[in-house]
């Protein structure tokens, strides 16, 4: 049995229902949960911690059924977006709070130790409301980690921070998690959190878990258009024309794509392509190993920091491509240009 598992969890809150959620985590897994607002991500977390009683389903941790255990018996920690620090306690008292319940001695040393590792040791005497968001966040993290919970749940823990602080805090978070060897479930709207922290991803919508799996799987093989859009991939529908030694040729609305994935001729399939897996070129590239060279029209350029997202039209299909802004200048790309998209067969994934 896995370290942690949720089996067929159902929670009915009247207008909102969490439906048939099942997944397993191994020890030290880092799961990020993504999905649009109102999807039920917070409800999921709060049911794992024990504040919603499921109507159906079970939750196990370390082979123990905790579905009906009260929250205080579960030893699962939580960190919220607004940190929920206890305003009538000092920073020190906040961090020591859970530890005091566990042990009577060595509290001071442990609090100082974790405070140093999260760089908040100079704040211990302060009241929480006098701290900046980033500082409060680290206090909340220290408070949750110091009791060495079996698992740590975080609900958008970094979203209230400015980008620079967020990056720094993310680094501290990663170190702390690694040091304690904690298993984590982390809700986020920020793809950078996903890329830099997670090894597993779950996508929620309308109370259902649409997809769950290893980071690469979910991002490379999104199971639906909704997920593809959510994770920025392109999904194309087509029909398998040929299969040569396990290499499939797929007809997508009049152009051909070669995929290294196996499929039966005649089968209707969908393929997923990640935007960063596509190369653009001004001229038709010759003598290259990639299977797919597609003629395309550049429809739109959207700048996002150091990179730009290009929308290419190939026949009737739109494909999203991610390129560095410097590439944009070097190739002097403008909307309306005729260009070529190059994709390796291994990056055309049948989903």
């Amino acid at each position, binding site marked *: 049995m896995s370290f942690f598992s949720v089996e067929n969890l159902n929670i009915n809150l009247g207008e909102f229902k969490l439906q048939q959620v099942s997944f397993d985590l191994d020890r030290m897994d880092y799961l990020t949960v993504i999905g649009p607002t109102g999807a039920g991500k917070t409800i999921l977390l*709060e049911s794992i*911690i*024990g*504040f919603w009683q499921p109507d159906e389903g079970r939750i196990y941790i370390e082979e123990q059924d905790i579905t009906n255990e*009260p*929250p*205080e018996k*579960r*030893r*699962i*920690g*939580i960190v*919220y977006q*607004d940190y*929920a620090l*206890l*305003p*009538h306690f000092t920073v020190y008292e906040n961090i020591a*709070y*859970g530890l005091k*319940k*566990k042990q009577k001695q060595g509290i001071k040393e442990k609090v100082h130790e974790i405070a140093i590792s999260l760089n908040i040791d100079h704040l211990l005497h302060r009241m929480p409301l006098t701290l900046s968001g980033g500082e409060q966040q680290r206090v909340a993290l220290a*408070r*949750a980690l110091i*009791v060495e*919970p079996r698992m740590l749940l975080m609900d958008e823990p970094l979203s209230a921070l400015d980008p620079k602080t967020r990056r720094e805090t993310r680094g501290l978070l990663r170190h702390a998690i690694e040091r304690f060897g904690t298993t984590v479930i982390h809700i986020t709207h920020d793809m950078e959190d996903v890329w830099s922290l997670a090894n597993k991803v779950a996508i929620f919508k309308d109370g259902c878990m649409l997809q769950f799996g290893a980071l690469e799987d979910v991002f490379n093989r999104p199971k639906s258009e909704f997920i593809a859009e959510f994770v920025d991939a392109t999904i194309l529908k087509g029909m398998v024309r040929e299969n040569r030694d396990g290499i499939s040729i797929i007809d997508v609305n009049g152009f051909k794509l070669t995929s290294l994935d196996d499929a039966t001729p005649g089968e209707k399939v969908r393929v997923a392509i990640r935007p960063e897996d596509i190369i653009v070129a001004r001229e038709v590239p010759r003598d290259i190993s990639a299977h797919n060279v597609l003629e395309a029209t550049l429809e739109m350029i959207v700048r996002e920091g150091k990179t730009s997202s290009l929308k290419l039209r190939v026949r009737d299909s739109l494909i999203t491509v991610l390129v560095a802004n410097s590439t944009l200048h070097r190739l002097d790309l403008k909307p309306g240009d005729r260009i070529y998209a190059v994709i390796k067969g291994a990056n055309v994934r049948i989903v």
Partner: protein
Amino acid sequence: MHKLNLFRSALILVSLFITALLMFAVVSLFLVPDVKDVWHNIFSREMIFSLKLSVLTGLMSTFLVMVFSIPIGYALSRFTFTGKGFVKTIIDLPVAFPELVLGLCLLLLFGNTWLGKAFDSLGLNFVFTKKGVVIAQFFTALPYASRIMKSTFDYIDPRMEFVSRSLGYSMPETFINVSLPLARNGVLASAVISFARCIGTFGTVLILAGGTYMKTEILPITLYLNISYGNMGMALTSGIVLAVVSFIAIYIFEKAELVL
């Protein structure tokens, strides 16, 4: 623009007019009587008895009200349970219910029913006694205190409690460590309001505890008894003492609200 201004001025005028009227009414209580007379009356045997009994019963009732309104407020704020709506209505009832009728109901309950007899056998006789004063005040003030406590707990983010429980503290421990300290100002505010309500309760006390001279005589009863004897001086003095107590209560209440 002109029309809008007219509308605005009219509304403000109405507010000012009513406020002024109220203010003059209250001020006249302090201006009409002779200061020496009031001073003399305050130290009369009857007034000292009444003031003492008022403060004593007021404090006891307030204590009881808090003992009950904190759990009631918390239950109404945090839990859903069958009969919750019913509990709310019944507890709120005294707010709109005529005081005299409430007193009558309590009189009947503690007078002749098995419940009254059960209390009586425990040495708790509420009919026409000082204990009755406390009970009457208790039921009059309870709805106000419960409401304030409920909205106080509504304002406390339950996630603070979630965090405390996830750190190993049981629900009662969390209540003591987190909810109650965070509700401190609400507790203060509702205690002050309760005390003011208790001190000023008349109708319920009159019916359940009786308005007996120097026995169940609290300030409102003193006011009432002296008015009916035509003893204006004593009546005014008890009125002034009551008003001062209320002002102090309101002042503390506003202070508590500010930091809430």
